[in-house]
């Protein structure tokens, strides 16, 4: 680790404001809601993105205790929608992990979405393994 710091004398760190840092990525995947949303966008964007309402419904379904998607009440759906719109999608977009079109209410994958879902998989398989022995 010491070698990495000494050889990278010009680490980007906070010098460039728009540059995405490792911390941005770790922050982006810190909450379950964002992890679910990222995976859903990756698996369901066929090129024209995912509609935000559909994403909200999917996230609530995965997180909540539902058997069928039409059991989700409009209140719950709205709460998740607002959270995604105001908080989670902007965080993901700032980290470059999704692209959001606010006018069309759609969320798109980027070049790094799949790689970050791989990172999530690594953490889960290494640290949340059912029984390691």
């Amino acid at each position, binding site marked *: 680790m010491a070698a990495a710091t000494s050889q990278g004398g010009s680490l980007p760190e906070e010098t460039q404001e728009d540059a995405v840092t490792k911390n941005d990525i770790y922050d982006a995947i810190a909450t379950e809601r964002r992890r679910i949303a990222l995976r859903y966008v990756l698996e369901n964007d066929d090129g024209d993105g995912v509609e935000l309402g559909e994403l909200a419904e999917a996230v609530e379904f995965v997180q909540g205790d539902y058997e069928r998607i039409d059991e989700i009440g409009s209140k719950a759906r709205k709460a998740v929608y607002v959270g995604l719109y105001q908080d989670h999608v902007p965080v993901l977009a700032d980290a470059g992990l999704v692209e959001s079109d606010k006018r069309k209410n759609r969320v798109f994958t980027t070049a790094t979405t799949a*790689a970050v879902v791989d990172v999530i998989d690594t953490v889960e398989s290494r640290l*949340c393994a059912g029984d390691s022995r």
Partner: protein
Amino acid sequence: MIAAAIERLRSVRAIGAVIEWLLSLLPWRTPTASLDPDVAFRIVSSARRRHLVRALEETDAEAIDVSELAALVAATEYGLETDALDADQRKRVYVSLYQTHLPRMADLGLIEYDVDAGIVRPTAESAAIAAAVDDVDGQIQREVIL
């Protein structure tokens, strides 16, 4: 004939060593933990806690003094050698480990922490977290921060 037998034995042992080495590369030989995902991601998402588990892993000692641990973490954060840290840099990290990170990680069973003695011991969980963080850091560096 005896020489041939010894020769055979030796080659068997060499094969054994190779097999042992190959086994060590298998994924289930890398340390894993079974943490709640919320806990795992919360720990991993904090830069200071990432540095902390790695510092614990890198000192091969069985136990480490909190102030020594703080110096290692501060050195990583400021990109300096521990000798080059000033008192403020050490203190800032020390107080945050003492008041926040160490008690929280001990409560989650991720480290062994003796508050009175001011000593921290790694656990199988902290070792697994350190190993996972190493890999994930590399993954992010190679594939995400383009």
